[in-house]
């Protein structure tokens, strides 16, 4: 690459994104403390996308995709990775420009690169959510997903949000010109991504595919589902939603273990969706009650 300045380390990239989005008025949040498949599940996105209150936030969210584990042997695949997530509600008129500016911030100059917005309709069956937007491409590389939320938890949004998701490892590999994720420069001082995460990838892959306990997971799924229901009856939307996130992750673990048939799969997804929908409704009801 023609850039003279050395590319940012993994952690430096996160710090720059934090700085950038903080300057755009975003609340910088810390990762949510429950396992989830994507940053969108964070209540700061799913629940805050609903209702009439404006909301701008950015955060890093560890994302777990148990089935994507490769024992640390695949240079491009991880069962645990980081998403950088931005949500702005209502979507700002200059969302695309902001996004391009954020890429400039981490070393991708739009005058040197070929940025594209390629159609990508986003849908999350488990969250009952959908939106329209694009994959953001840089030189043929997908460096982010850009979505205008239209519906969440089965509820049409009042104020459409702009959601941006950066896959941090992939983006860092591109910026640092590294072909193996474990060789990423993590801190600019000799620590690599592999130093931090390789062992975890190996052990969690073994867990996800070989050692997780399907009977226990099935039980926990049912527990989470039941608990979500009772918390909803107490009108505690946030604790109830935690149980919904847990159920979703337990489902992903069961799926990775290969013990869910095609029909069961559809019914599990429908069950999580029902939880998500009820949590969203409960959250919204609480918001409206506050507004009165």
């Amino acid at each position: 690459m023609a850039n003279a300045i050395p590319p940012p380390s993994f952690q430096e990239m996160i710090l720059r994104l934090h700085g950038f989005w903080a300057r755009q008025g975003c609340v910088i949040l810390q990762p949510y403390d429950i396992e989830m498949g994507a940053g969108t599940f964070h209540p700061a996105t799913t629940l805050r996308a609903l209702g009439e209150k404006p909301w701008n936030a950015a955060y890093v969210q560890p994302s777990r995709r148990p089935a994507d584990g490769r024992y640390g042997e695949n240079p491009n695949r991880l069962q645990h990775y980081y998403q950088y997530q931005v949500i702005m509600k209502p979507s700002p008129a200059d969302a695309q420009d902001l996004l391009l500016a954020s890429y400039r911030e981490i070393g991708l100059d739009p005058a040197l690169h070929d940025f594209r917005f390629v159609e990508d309709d986003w849908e999350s069956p488990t969250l009952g959510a959908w939106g329209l937007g694009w994959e953001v491409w840089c030189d043929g590389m997908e460096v982010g997903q850009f979505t205008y939320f239209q519906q969440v938890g089965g509820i049409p949004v009042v104020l459409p949000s702009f959601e941006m998701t950066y896959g941090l490892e992939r983006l860092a590999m591109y910026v640092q010109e590294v072909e193996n994720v474990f060789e990423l420069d993590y801190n600019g001082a000799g620590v690599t991504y592999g130093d931090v995460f390789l062992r975890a990838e190996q052990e969690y892959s073994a867990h996800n595919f070989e050692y997780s306990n399907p009977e226990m997971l099935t039980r926990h799924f049912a527990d989470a589902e039941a608990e979500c229901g009772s918390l909803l009856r107490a009108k505690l939307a946030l604790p109830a939603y935690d149980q919904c996130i847990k159920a979703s992750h337990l489902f992903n673990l069961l799926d990775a273990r290969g013990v869910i048939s095609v029909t069961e799969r559809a019914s599990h997804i429908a069950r999580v969706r029902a939880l998500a929908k009820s949590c969203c409704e409960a959250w919204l009801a609480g918001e409206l009650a506050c507004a009165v």
Partner: protein
Amino acid sequence: MRRLAAVPATVIASAERSNPALPSEDSLQDTRASAFPGSEPPRSEFLLELFSEEIPARMQARGAEDLARLVTEALAPLSPSHIEPFSGPRRIALIARINASVPESTVVERGPRLFGPETAVAGFLRKHAAVQEQLHQEGEFWVLHKTSPEQPATALIAERLPALLRRFPWPKSMRWGGTSGLTWVRPLKRVLCLLDGVVVPFRLAIGADDGHRLATSNLSEGHRMMAPGAFAVKNAADWRRKLAERFVVLDAGERRALIEQGLNEAAARERNLAILPDAGLLDEVTGLVEWPVALIGRIDDEFMDLPPEVMQVSMRVNQRYFATRDAFGGAAPFFAFVANIQAVDGGETIIAGNERVLRARFADARHFWDLDRKQRLETRLHALDRVTFHVELGSQGERVARLSRLAEYLAPKLGANPELARRAALLAKADLTTGMVGEFPELQGIMGSYYALHDGEPAEVTAAIRDHYAPKGPSDDVPAAPVSIAVALADKLDVLAQFFAIGEKPTGAGDPYALRRAGLGVIRIIRENKLRLPLRDAIGFALEGRHEFTADILDFLIERLRIQLRAEGARHDVLAAIGSDDDLTRLLARTEAVAAFLKTEDGGHLQATYKRAGNFLRTEEQRGANPSNITSTDGEGVVRDWFTHPEEHLLADALVACRNVPQLIADERFSEAMTQMARLRVPLDAFFDKVTVNDPDEAIRYHRLRLLNWVRSTINQMADFSRIEG
């Protein structure tokens, strides 16, 4: 109240005027202007551009066409012409010529009777938003003369376009920003709307909805990176010029041509390469770039031994790259792609980036390729038991067991080795459990074939695994090797049999299991290989004893064949006239022989006289004649002694000569059968010339009708000519 017939509205032309500003060539080109004889209304240039965030490539052309159509309809009173639609990644637009105004017009409409009820008059006035003073007495009726004043084009545009834009038929629209219900395919940023260079002012707000505070302006935008920011537009020509200066190739056709040319030139510069033509990809890329810059990237040699299909999927589907060929037509280690920017470093960074992306994709593919080959296909079979084929129809494992039995059964009838067919069918679906097919489902069959080759399976088996899904569509080739044919037919017959047996036939509403495609596949494989396959037995075998569905499936296949012939412009009516035959090749040969015969002079003529004979018989049958009086399928009840004309003898002789037709048909000598029947033409003509069928003597009349029935039944042996059109 009596419904009042409206008197046709008369449009009274507005006062004559001239437009010195209008170039004369425009009036010459504009035929619509002649609708106003003697008064050329001035023509104005209308420019409308809807500038938005990136529109999905596949929706752009249609969006521009819809815009042109809807604007033409909405502005019909302004007689739009010379409409030029434009589409691209960030805009749809049009230029048109319209009248500068809707001329003053008067509508004359007859109203209620003079002395009718008051309410009738009040209702009439309300309906036309008129007042009593506008009514005149004419005879016994009130007549309304309603004059609409001249309306300037700007007023009509401002009145109609907001609603048009709010209801624009994008396949999928979205909301954005605030609470406005104004939707667009992606956020709409600007509405450029000029009439002769002057902004036509209107807003998209409606009631309490702020319409994203969008209002028309004279502003547009060029290339996002290379010429950021808005610029003012004076007129259509200025708009085009300034967009070109700001790195936007406006016209999609021009963009496509530039991309094609650019790719070819870039490839030729790079070691004399050629681009592998790909019209679909070219169309898509045209919708992804405003300023196309063709670039060439290099593929690392270490990946060139990946199967070409694998490279193709990564390149074309995932990356929108074009493949290249060297001077000898072989795959070249280069790819071509189109950037949307003339980068300041000449594209060096962009090429390097794209090369790295492709390298990562190929590395991923290589990983699966190496991993998958470590396990023999046959050891994957048990895993298929865990892959569901259909809830009611069990697993892929069960399906494979059926397929191997069916392929083995079909093989001898197709000249294929049954053992190889069974083996190929057994392995055909094993690649569904490989990493590569999990990653790229479109490579099913293809990967199985590579892995089988690696396992040392016989060539017939690897080819059959590769081709057994074919034909996947109308443009896909059908398999031609016997073992491949056996497995491909088994694949489709099994699907048809299984789904028909659980009542999942295709309906007008849908065909979720693509049974029509499977049916058409069976037909094409049989037809293009001229296979002699008794389908009834094959379907019966596939049904595993549930024979009650055989007829349904066979009818379904013959109906697909008829529809296919119709689509080809062939004689589908002839096929229907021949009826059912479970040997499609024989059915088609017979159809072709009859169709060819009908094209000859004899054939056309014989068909006409056949109809004439048929009419006599039908009339008689409708009268309720005792069928036994006129029935004669092979000359029974025809007695030469009763003949009174030599023409009757000649016709009977010709019919007797036709007694070999059934044998000719059985021997599949269809053309000869038709030639034999053609000899009926002359005696039949002579018969109708000289002999009166409806003789007053009832017995003679019946005798002659029997003779005609003999004619009809002789010809019907080949096809029911009454069902043939023409």
